[in-house]
């Protein structure tokens, strides 16, 4: 019987290697898999390329991973946030690279990566600094830039509930980038609040089918960035 659950977050992230590309779900704190990120900090992999819409806040979660010096490059759309100081400081001092991608292009590049589409055209960024140097092509009288599919070695994501096959549902706007990231990584690791038995999730309402999920960790009471930041927590 298929059962993708692993013992804990440490086991789930054990094989993430130096230099890996890691997609991390979440938009701000909604959907951020903090416990998996903290396990990755403990694990020690460095030189990572991380894909996330933001760069975390305070000194927990993604911001803590960056602060620990493990991230060589961020691919994201909005590397500033409330309480976001770690990335800006390291970026200004040249300790971390940034590939800035418009949010919709980032989402579509990840979807394309997961869908076997190597490249597509989009009107977004034409005529702007982010469109500079990109291949332009005209369709039906309008200009578009060529953008490439994006894949990753690992995806760290957070769900509301999963079954042993890896079918996942999400909580409200915590869904954000997660379902497309799950499709674009060689190994997708999900932390979920609840594990349910096979057959308990409505097949009409499953957002991420199990085929995209490789490891499941139950984190019954996940932390929230804003709560940790308010408490002044700094990880580790």
């Amino acid at each position, binding site marked *: 019987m298929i059962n993708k659950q692993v013992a804990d977050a440490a086991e789930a992230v054990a094989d993430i290697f130096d230099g890996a590309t890691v997609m991390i779900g979440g*938009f*701000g*704190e*909604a*959907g951020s898999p903090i416990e998996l990120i903290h396990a990755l900090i403990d694990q020690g992999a460095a030189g990572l390329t991380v894909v996330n*819409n933001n760069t975390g806040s305070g000194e927990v979660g993604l911001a803590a991973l960056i602060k620990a010096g493990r991230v060589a490059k961020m691919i994201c*759309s*909005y*590397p*500033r*946030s*409330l309480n976001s100081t770690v*990335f*800006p400081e390291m*970026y*200004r001092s040249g300790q971390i690279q*940034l590939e*800035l991608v*418009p*949010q*919709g*292009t*980032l*989402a*579509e590049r*990840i*979807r394309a990566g997961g869908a076997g589409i190597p490249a597509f055209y*989009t*009107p*977004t*960024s*034409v*005529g*702007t*600094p*982010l469109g500079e140097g990109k291949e332009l092509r005209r369709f039906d009288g309008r200009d578009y830039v060529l953008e490439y599919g994006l894949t990753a070695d690992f995806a760290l994501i957070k769900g509301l509930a999963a079954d042993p096959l890896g079918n996942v549902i*999400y*909580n*409200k*706007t*915590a*869904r*954000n*980038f*997660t*379902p*497309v990231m799950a499709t674009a990584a060689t190994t997708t690791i999900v932390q979920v609040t609840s594990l349910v038995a096979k057959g308990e999730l409505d097949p009409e309402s499953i*957002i991420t089918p199990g085929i995209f999920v490789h490891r499941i960790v139950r984190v019954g009471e996940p932390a*929230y960035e*804003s*709560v940790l930041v308010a408490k002044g927590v700094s990880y580790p």
Partner: protein
Amino acid sequence: MNTVTSKIGLTREQMAQRVALDIPDGSYVNLGIGIPELVTRFVPEGRELIYHTENGLLGMGPSPETGMGDPELINAGKRQVTALPGAAYFHQADSFAMIRGGHLDLCVLGALQVSEKGDIANWSTGAPDAIPAVGGAMDLVAGVKSIYVITQHCTKHGRPKLVAECTYPLTGLAVIDRIYTDLAVIDITPRGFQLVELSPGVSFDYVRERTGARLLPIEEDQRMAGYE
């Protein structure tokens, strides 16, 4: 700018109210952060607008009561919101398919500069020390059917934000349809900035002097209506 001029023209709330008047019933609308967010407060009775937030929700409602929010139910500005009856959640690629595919009727955005060709700069001042951050702005201006800008007519330092050519890094080329400022409503037309309406007590010359490109006058005198 002296303290007297700061009393001329609309307040932020009045600007939002003015925009709200122009949004038809049943529109699907995305509101940028800042003044655009105020629009929801002034939708005339009897009209139903449906708000999209690009992080994955259609049918966004107001902020929750204190302590009743969910940290995972937020808007694009990362503030807690609610979901109205009839709302739907979707992932980011679907959300931007909605935007890029031209399904939203209207986006109301703030701006640093708007050119007479309808170019907009609203994501970066290009300052060497700035952390570049664009979010969904470029997708919104490229995809949504109509783009309205709501902005102070001039910067804090009194410089025009409506210009011949944007000097800040662009968000999009020839994408803006209309600009609502504290002083006036102005359309982007093939001939440039076309005055549509002056705010109460504001003269054409007053606006023209504060606009960084040619401003075409209103064909006939026109009074504002719809707010006090």
